């Protein structure tokens, strides 16, 4: 009989800043998670309601735009999906730190790289974008 593969562990990274969202999601993929990237709270709701994959946790920016603000979203998730851990982060440094903690609990035994380097990478990208626009 074929061995059943374990269900993938899934997260949602929700941030309106695409450079932050991409970097956090990529880091968490390296930690072994399947990651939905959501730009708004509406997309978080879609990911949860779609239901094909069980979501373990949501890492969201505290200033996430959309139908619900981040704090309303946390309440909505707690009411509808109580098994989903919600972590709100106020800036890239706290988001990277939270991603590091999620990585410690993740499917892989080791961190792929230091979460502080994620924050540093995002800051470099943001600076490069600003320079291009000057």
């Amino acid at each position, binding site marked *: 009989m074929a061995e059943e593969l374990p269900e993938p562990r899934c997260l949602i990274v929700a941030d309106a800043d*695409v*450079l932050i969202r991409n970097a956090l999601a990529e880091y968490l*993929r390296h930690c072994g998670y399947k990651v939905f990237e959501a*730009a708004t709270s509406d997309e978080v709701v*879609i*990911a949860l309601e*779609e239901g094909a994959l069980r979501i373990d946790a949501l890492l969201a920016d505290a200033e996430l735009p959309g139908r619900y603000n981040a704090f309303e979203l946390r309440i909505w998730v707690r009411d509808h999906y109580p098994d989903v851990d919600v972590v709100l982060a106020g800036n890239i440094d706290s988001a990277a730190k939270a991603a590091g903690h999620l990585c410690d609990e993740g499917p892989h035994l080791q961190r792929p790289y230091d979460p502080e380097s994620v924050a540093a990478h995002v800051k470099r990208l943001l600076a*490069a974008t600003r320079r*291009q626009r000057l």
Partner: protein
Amino acid sequence: MGAQTILVVEDEFLIRFMLADSLREIGYQVLEAADGDEGFEILMSGQVIDLIITDVRMPGAIDGMELTRRSKSLAPARPVIVCSADLFKSQSHPADEFLAKPYTIEALAGLIARLIGDPWQKSSQNHGA
């Protein structure tokens, strides 16, 4: 040297997730953008992008056609695949390839492989970035 990086620009959340996830399964690196404005921000960040797949109609100031024009201005040789349900191939557009929705991931993967090669088989083409 890593796998080729593809930028997926699509405002429909589940389509974007499924497309990006499928391309990652194939072995490509994928960056996701929820609209043309985000796609352009990624291009301006200086990250190496080997190919762009974009929807046409999206919210924001930059639609898929404008994003294609801006990408061509930044890196003329970088391929762009435009996907749409209502764009006719005969219509003038700056993209390298047009894919009518709905499409299969196999059809898209074949198109990508033709433009930039299979994952890990880096194209020798200089995208002019």
